[in-house]
């Protein structure tokens, strides 16, 4: 699934490790989600959107 995590992360100047810690998952897992190799569950997707302060559809959708 395409997503804008990398863009949103860059806007906030967060590293993968920093974001992974905020949403409480492994950095490798975040990397897999970011590159579209793994799809997060709805609760995790909502958690990611929440730390960025945006809606879920602003994170996951056409990049």
């Amino acid at each position: 699934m395409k997503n804008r995590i990398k863009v949103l992360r860059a806007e906030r100047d967060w590293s993968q490790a920093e974001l992974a810690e905020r949403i409480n998952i492994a950095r490798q897992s975040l990397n897999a989600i970011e590159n579209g190799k793994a799809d997060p569950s709805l609760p995790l997707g909502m958690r990611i959107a929440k730390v960025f302060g945006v809606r879920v559809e602003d994170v996951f959708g056409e990049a």
Partner: protein
Amino acid sequence: MTYSPKGRWIAGGTVFLLMAIFALYVRTARPSPDILPWVGGAFIVVAFALSFRAYFYLDEIQQGERMRAFYYGAPIGIAFSGLLTFYLTANQPFLDVLADIFHHHRPHKPFEYFVTGMMFIMLPQLVGNFVARTFMALAKRSA
């Protein structure tokens, strides 16, 4: 249960520590054939419980990967069990051969056959899981 790398290392590390203690116990204390299957059985139960606990310390993406590894790894293990069964039954009852790990006095006790049978089913699947995980890691690296 939430993601906790520390919790996973503690649970996983305890399993390896128990394995080392069990191996040392069998090697040095040389327990009698009457109690070895019980100690072995107890060790398997505790190790399985701790491994299960360690699994729930993973995040959902890691849990999905482990499940996928078991999905592909279990058939590899079962196929290996089948080949081993065929090989061992070619000339003698295979459970007797496997149960010889406890001692060489046949016939073995029913519980020894039970533990051996369980190991025969579980261990190849566990090894198959690690084989699948290795292939998945290699595939990910080359992608």
